[in-house]
């Protein structure tokens, strides 16, 4: 067994690659959690009576958050596969 393979084996056995991956997963999950709670908060606010300008602003923010949630889910899916 070559030195390179030995190192790879040690890295694999100690799960160093997995550690890096799981830290990224944790970051995405954290972010998704925050974004989802933000989305819920905006949904609640949109149910109340608001001015046209405010409703437009909140709808736009909702759109942005939805895009970001989608992006986060794609990243998470990639990390899980």
């Amino acid at each position, binding site marked *: 067994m070559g030195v390179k393979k030995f190192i790879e084996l040690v890295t694999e056995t100690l799960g160093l690659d997995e550690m890096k991956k799981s830290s990224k997963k944790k970051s995405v999950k954290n972010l998704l959690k925050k974004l989802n709670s933000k989305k819920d908060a905006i949904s609640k606010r949109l149910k109340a009576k608001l001015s046209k300008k405010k409703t437009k602003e909140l709808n736009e923010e909702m*759109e*942005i958050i939805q895009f970001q949630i989608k992006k986060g889910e794609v990243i998470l899916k990639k990390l899980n596969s």
Partner: protein
Amino acid sequence: MLRRIFLPAILIILGYGFWISPDFKEIAAGVAIFLFGMITLEEGFKAFSGGTLEKILKKSTDKLYKSIGFGFIATAIMQSSSLVSVLTISFIGAGLIGLTQGIGIILGANIGTTTGAWLMAGFGLKVKISAYAMPMLAFGVILIFQKAKSIKGIGYILAGLGFLFLGIHYMKDGFEAFKETIDLASFAVDGFKGLLIFIGIGILATVVMQSSHATIVLILAALSVGQITYDNALALTIGANIGTTITAVLGSLSSNIDGKRLAGAHLIFNVVTALVAIVLMNQIISVVDVISDFIGIANDNHTLKLAVFDSLFKVMGVIMFIPFVDKLVKFLESNLKGKDKQEVESYESVQYLNDSVLELPATAMAAIVRETKHLYINAFEIIAHGLNLKRTNILSEMELEDVIKEGYSKNIVDIDDFYEHRIKGVYGEIIDFATQAQSKMSPEDIEDLYALKIASRDIVDAVKDTKHLQKNLVKYKNNLNNHIQEQYDGIRIGLAELLRGIDVVSKMSEEDEVIVLLSKMKVNMQRYDILANGTLDNLIRNNLITNEMATSLMNDSAYAYEISKHFIAMAEIIFIDVSSDIKNLGEDMLISDEEVDKILEKGD
């Protein structure tokens, strides 16, 4: 002059020593291997200092006791107080910690060095240490040749420890053999005279070896075979403690003023502690005997008793200094002053970039991030004043319509002059420093560094765009055509909103808020683009503005768009860095231009 004589003198003394005694050769080789081990060990720890350094430092140095604990642990692990002091100077230089925290780390590092004496006295002298050295060296060197930074780091640490152990083995063997030919103990000097002479030798030995740790190991090796007396060994230990400050003083020469103040604190602390130890020498020796008895160290076990002495007098020094840390900071701040303020104000210079932060890639990176933020603060002011807006109004909760009504000055602000004095020099130094720093960086770090250089360029470009925009803002300020005035007011409102938003982002710590706000700014930037939203077409079609006005407006709208684009791009690099969660995800979470278009289409 002294430096020119110093090195040849050392080489001649060593050469003569090798000539007359092969055992001296073994001791000297042991010291050389030990020092090489320390260099290798330092290299290994540097490989692990990137990434989360800033976070760790913030959490572990926010209180004085935590700073002391951090210094103690770092030194106990790395076995080098010199490395810890040089790194602390580097942290201060990069603005990662303040002077008080730095002094705390140095106090802790002083206690941390005592672990070396305990390890050597309790373990190094009792077992055949070279048996551990060989496998460490073999494994270490194999790992050093690997590409991965962390594995390489482990390799350096293993090899470093291997060399340390091997060095100790040679020193020990050398002294044992040396004893058979020359008895150094016959040169022992008793009393106060002996105390002063051996303190001097301790200082000199540490200055030559640049390591108090190496000196103490050497003292213990000599003491273990009776080549020096216990009393003289105590004096040598005090001398080593003073000599070690020279490394910190030399390290601070290339640092900023806080780095120099820290080296000053280190010097004051060690010299005062040594003076107190000299005055209370007999009492300290009695206490050492009592402690040794209490923990079961035999009366004739001088090596372990030396370790007790080393710990006692250093802990005593730290306890003595803790109540005076704030006073020491004030004393150093009033006696060691930075550049004249007037000089700083006329041509603004960099605040965080100095040679001391080049010590570690992580501190160099942190310093460049901070300097880029400094450049952004200057640019913020120039852009605000260039748009004839008050910075304080932008940062307040005032309605933006009111912000643009209250101008900054009746006179035209000279952006060129501002640029020359507060942007150009700082930008040039950032680029120059980044080029120097990247030679020590990994490919991933170089990528981050490249992004930072782009962020600095974005800032500079935004200032230049403001200069172009300012010309017509002034020209159409009091124009009788309300439509053109309205458009220019709209540009000013849009940019004021952008500056306010960027300022909010710069102070945010919640990553979800940061990315949502930056995305909102991107949407707004597109919305204010009068070329894309049809406003300009409408004005021309209905003959509301002249052709000349249309051309100006078209150009200036493009400038405003570019300013926004540059500032948002810059914020994505320098402010997202604050949150490790998003940094971990990179650009993957940020909204793209196509997505911005989709959001705008839906909104319409």
